[in-house]
């Protein structure tokens, strides 16, 4: 679920709301070759809300023919880089083929819809880190082979692309590929398609050809990422700064310090208990623009966002698969009280009869969150885990 300016206005925001502060607490600085700055702003078209962006440089493999793409969403709940094909400019990225030599397209699945496009190889550069020759998705590729979305893709939801206000999605969550062994052995997952002459049918695709999280492909600092964001003040802000740092415990700037480790199950989930109810499939998602949780006592407004009469101070307990637990305090402001120019604010939204609490971007405000990759070695043991 995401919020547009129209939704804000429809909620009664705008002129009646106080102007958000222009600045917040000093942002963490992006220092070192293993760090890039994050900005939370309203995106390429003013529509984004609670969305963290970085710039990503995409190059033809092994060359200096590169394109830097701004406003790529940093997403801890997906895996792999997806950019809109039009943002890749004139780059000639080599196509990924299946074992039959047919060009491969992908229907990337999200709870909020799908992203359709072709699969190509590129060098992906983030600060001083390089993932060489990895598969990436070019979303909304208009070339003839991929111009038509297969019915087996459009039957999964709405065409979401990379989301309004963004030029791409950088999936740096806990896992290596966006599918994994299931797609290597079978077309059944419905993610990968062979599209000779534009006639797309499902295909299996080898692990090494699947769209991949760039982090494990780095030469160094490849065991995870750290996201640090400034806090958002009451009433929200028009811009929030932060840092995406690569590696966990590999450099002076990515040490775990006193962060508590929350191990996860094979799906990447831990459990959250809120008001006596335990949600066993909970997760941390920088690509969700609110904290999504169920509480029928809080009134909602446009889009299912909560609009309490006054700001609520709430808490929940996260419990890892090893039984370690800790309390998370969070606040929920009335969405209606926010200005339409707000880019970041502590908001919540109703998730219905869910099995999860989806800890969206407000969870990251004023925090440093570590994402340890599945199978990777770190000073606190092997991933996958979250730490904060």
């Amino acid at each position, binding site marked *: *679920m*995401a*919020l*547009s300016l129209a*939704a804000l206005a429809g909620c009664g925001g705008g002129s009646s709301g106080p102007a958000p502060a222009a600045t917040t607490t000093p942002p963490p600085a992006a220092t070192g070759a293993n760090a890039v700055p994050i900005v939370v702003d309203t995106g390429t078209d003013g*529509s*984004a*809300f609670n*969305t963290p962006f970085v710039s990503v440089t995409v190059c033809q493999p092994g060359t200096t023919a590169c394109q830097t793409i701004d406003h790529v*969403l940093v997403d801890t*709940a*997906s*895996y792999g880089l997806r950019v809109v094909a039009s943002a890749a400019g004139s780059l000639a990225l080599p196509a990924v083929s299946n074992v039959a030599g047919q060009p491969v397209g992908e229907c*990337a*699945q*999200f*709870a*909020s*819809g799908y992203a359709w496009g072709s699969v190509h190889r590129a060098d992906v550069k983030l600060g001083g880190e390089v993932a060489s020759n990895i598969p990436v998705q070019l979303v909304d590729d208009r070339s003839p082979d991929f111009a038509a979305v297969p019915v087996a893709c*459009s*039957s*999964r*939801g*709405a065409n*979401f*692309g990379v*989301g*309004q*206000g*963004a030029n791409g999605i950088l*999936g740096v*969550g806990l896992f290596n590929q*966006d599918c994994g062994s*299931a797609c290597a052995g*079978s077309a*059944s*997952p*419905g*993610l990968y398609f062979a599209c000779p002459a534009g006639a797309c049918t499902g295909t299996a695709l080898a692990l090494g050809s699947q769209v991949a999280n760039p982090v494990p492909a780095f030469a160094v600092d490849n065991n995870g990422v750290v996201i640090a964001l400034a806090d958002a003040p009451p009433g929200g802000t028009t811009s929030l700064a932060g840092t995406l740092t690569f590696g966990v415990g590999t450099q002076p700037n990515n040490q775990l310090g006193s962060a508590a480790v929350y191990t996860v199950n094979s*799906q*990447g989930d831990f459990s959250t208990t809120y008001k006596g109810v335990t949600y066993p*499939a909970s*997760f941390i*998602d*920088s*690509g*969700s*623009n609110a904290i*999504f949780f169920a509480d029928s006592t809080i009134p909602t407004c446009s*889009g*299912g966002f909560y609009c309490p009469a006054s700001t609520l101070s709430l808490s929940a307990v996260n419990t890892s698969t090893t039984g370690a637990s800790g309390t998370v305090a969070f606040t929920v402001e009335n969405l209606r009280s926010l200005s339409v120019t707000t880019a970041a604010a502590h908001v919540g939204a*109703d*998730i*219905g*009869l*869910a*099995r*999860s609490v*989806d800890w*969206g971007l407000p969870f990251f405000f004023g925090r440093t969150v570590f994402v340890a990759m599945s199978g990777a070695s770190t000073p606190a043991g092997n991933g996958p885990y979250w730490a904060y």
Partner: protein
Amino acid sequence: MKSIPVVAALLAAGMSTGWAALGGKPARLGPHVAASKSSAGSTGQAAYTETRKVLDSGTTVHEYLDAGGNVFAVSWSGPFLPDLKEILGEHFDAMAAQQRNQRAGGRSPLHIKQSDVVIDSEGHMGAFQGRAWLPAQLPAGFDPRAIK
């Protein structure tokens, strides 16, 4: 537990030439069903038939049928999204419309609460879950929290 004629309901569904999924006969899901099972269930006074289909993608789909064999609730859980158009039937458009209306920025769960249908879609890449039901079609006494 009140028992209802499970076999008859499933036969009727299987013999149906048309399908409508949620609000009608069960979704076929065709060759993608790797295993299926049905059982009678009840919550409070409500009796219904629950079918469980494991798709070849590894995702499980539950359908809840009333005494007339019509689907009043569905759910899905697993690594990949199922064919939601087939499962949600005419209500797929309500979900897609909501998704299109909320495009800006991040990717987030979906919660649609309309008078005719409630749809939740949650989870993340590799671990999806969702459920949908028709408030007006629920057997008397059926609590949507009983949907698996």
